[in-house]
């Protein structure tokens, strides 16, 4: 009998909760519906990726609020969720966001769909100097076909990060000299790189791999392999726009990649993402790692890494690394574009850009990258500037996300033995040809 009473009580509770919340809901909805104002918006909503560079922006925006009285709300979501989050917003008549950041993958797609507001009239009116940006970055996340849609926010050009102590190890050096008749140094070609990395794995076994790699679909494997492709003289497309991703250069790049993966990288690297690979390197179990240049700052952090002080950055062997970056853009359906631009102009001004860089941000402006204070703090930026200037980007086409997806799938097939390298590359070429 007591238990029946309890159940009844539960039902009564349910009922009362129900009525309470149905009335509660209404007040909540009116409170939290996006604050919308007309011109002269006093509150800006920005959608950003959850990375340290976003944190550095968060740390400086209070200044903007103090100067102008405009409140800045930054909503940070992770990379994988950004596209899902942005697309429905951009598709609508109005957007909840006044400013967004755009990855270089999406530039072609976003301009093709007409989702971004051209900035040229603002730039001209306010004489904002865009020549301060590194050219390879501005051509990627700035200008598309002569129209400026974005201002470069931060760069993530790839590079070779290596262990200075391993490459200086006299014992390894003399053994290498004895076996191959040449000196063990930071390699300048891919063949030499793969050779050295296999040599180190052979010598040191499981305590030190020559290189750690990342074979997870679609981004890690694609961006890693594109360094091999570009450094082997390969390209996605010929001048006439037809694919050449299955030519001899690409095949060589893929064979070297698979050779390195099978004979030098740790077991299971075919399933590694950025994080797994990073951790192998950070624990001191790998001599080299093709990754974003700013990983160096993280590897110098003792909380995350055991190799702090023993690492440096160089260009990817072969010299052509993969460029990457994010750009600020104003959505076409933003409510008050003038207000958005005012903030954008401020956050990308020299002073603020320098402040963000000194907090650890990854610069896009030449004058910040070569600033003596910044260089004093991060001496390796001399190398980074060279890497960015020589690097090549993923082609800006509307189907770039598809391109990466197809690339990742087929490369993974080739690495895991599901297809021969040539078959995999032919499949990519065939599917790329079907893009209209």
């Amino acid at each position: 009998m007591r238990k029946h009473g309890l159940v009844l009580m539960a039902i009564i509770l349910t009922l009362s909760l129900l009525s309470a919340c149905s009335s509660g809901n209404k007040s909540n909805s009116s409170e939290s519906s996006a604050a919308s104002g007309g011109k002269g918006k006093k509150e800006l909503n920005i959608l950003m990726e959850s990375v340290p560079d976003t944190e550095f922006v968060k740390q400086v925006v209070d200044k903007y609020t103090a100067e102008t009285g405009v409140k800045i709300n930054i909503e940070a979501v992770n990379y994988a969720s950004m596209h899902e989050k942005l697309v429905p917003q951009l598709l609508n008549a109005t957007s909840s966001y006044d400013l967004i950041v755009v990855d270089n993958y999406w530039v072609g797609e976003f301009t093709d769909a007409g989702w971004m507001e051209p900035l040229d009239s603002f730039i001209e009116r306010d004489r904002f100097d865009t020549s301060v940006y590194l050219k390879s970055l501005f051509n990627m996340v700035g200008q598309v076909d002569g129209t400026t849609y974005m201002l470069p926010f931060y760069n993530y050009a790839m590079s070779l990060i290596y262990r200075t102590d391993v490459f200086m190890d006299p014992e390894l050096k003399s053994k290498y000299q004895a076996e191959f008749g040449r000196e063990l140094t930071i390699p300048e070609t891919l063949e030499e790189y793969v050779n050295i990395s296999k040599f180190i794995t052979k010598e040191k076994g499981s305590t030190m791999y020559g290189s750690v790699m990342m074979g997870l679909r679609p981004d890690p494997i694609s961006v890693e392999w594109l360094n091999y492709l570009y450094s082997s003289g390969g390209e996605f497309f010929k001048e006439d726009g037809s694919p050449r991703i299955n030519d001899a250069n690409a095949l060589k790049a893929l064979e070297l990649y698979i050779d390195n993966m099978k004979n030098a990288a740790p077991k299971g690297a075919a399933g590694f993402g950025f994080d797994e690979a990073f951790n192998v390197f950070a624990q001191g179990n790998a001599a080299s790692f093709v990754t974003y240049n700013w990983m160096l700052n993280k590897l110098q952090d003792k909380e995350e890494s055991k190799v702090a002080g023993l690492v440096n950055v160089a260009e990817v062997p072969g010299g052509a690394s993969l460029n990457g970056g994010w750009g600020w853009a104003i959505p076409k359906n933003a409510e008050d574009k003038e207000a958005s631009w005012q903030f954008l102009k401020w956050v990308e001004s020299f002073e603020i850009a320098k402040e963000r860089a000194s907090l650890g941000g990854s610069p896009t402006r030449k004058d910040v990258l070569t600033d003596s204070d910044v260089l004093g703090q991060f001496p390796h930026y001399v190398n980074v500037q060279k890497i960015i200037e020589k690097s090549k980007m993923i082609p800006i086409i509307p189907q770039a996300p598809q391109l990466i997806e197809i690339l990742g799938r087929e490369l993974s097939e080739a690495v895991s033995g599901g297809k021969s390298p040539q078959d995999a590359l032919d499949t990519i070429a065939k599917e790329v040809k079907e893009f209209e």
Partner: protein
Amino acid sequence: MTAKRSERLLDSLTYIALTVCALIFLLPILWIVRTSFTTKAIAYQIPPKWFITPTLDNYRDIFTDNPFGKYFMNSMVVSLVSTVIAVFLGAMAAYWIARRVKGGNFLRIAILGTQMLPPIVMVIPIFMMIKKLNLLDSWVALIATYLSFSLPYMIWLLMGFFEAIPKDLDEACEIDGCTKMQAFTKVVLPLAAPGIMAAGILSFLMAWNEFLFALVLTGTGARTLPVAIANMETQQGVMIAQLCAATVIIILPVVVLSLFIQKYLVNGMTMGSVK
């Protein structure tokens, strides 16, 4: 005598087997707890350091870096309210269907049919509807959306439990002069309490763990825990130690909540009826 002994043997075997099972579930959880008190560098150290000096930094970080308390509140409210509504409406609907002779099969399939489409294709129309109603980033939006899966599942699960209860019982009550509602609340509900609790927990957890709708429909105001947790996987790596700390914080209160609910689930009402 032998029967008693075999009973006792079986009892000890059961306990041994259960302990093994519990360990399978528990050990990874313990590792999560341990990781939540370390730094990333120690988390990935092999061979592992067995004795670590615990740090509370991760716990501090998750509360200072983002309004974790607010996200927790959002998750709790949205999951609880949608579950309560689903239990309430779903139990009645399930009873109605369970006691129908004709068309039962069709209704069953139809109700389940609403759940057969991957949520991915439902997101776009739902987003547009919510946006039109100007309800983006609100609790209502999530509660309504979560009802779209918790209510059908609830009906579907409870039908089974109601059907297991002999019809004669509530019919007898009706003959004695109670209304359908009384027969339902006085006779059927108490007997089905374990099922209702199980289905309620299930519905709560589906809402608690839901990611895609929460991502697309919320901003920072109504953001829920799964979205906040997903943000710990960044382009610069997974904040594994903070993620483990967040997981621990998420698990704890729900474990407490489930301790309270278990009374109905584990012991059931059968013991009551036997007494």
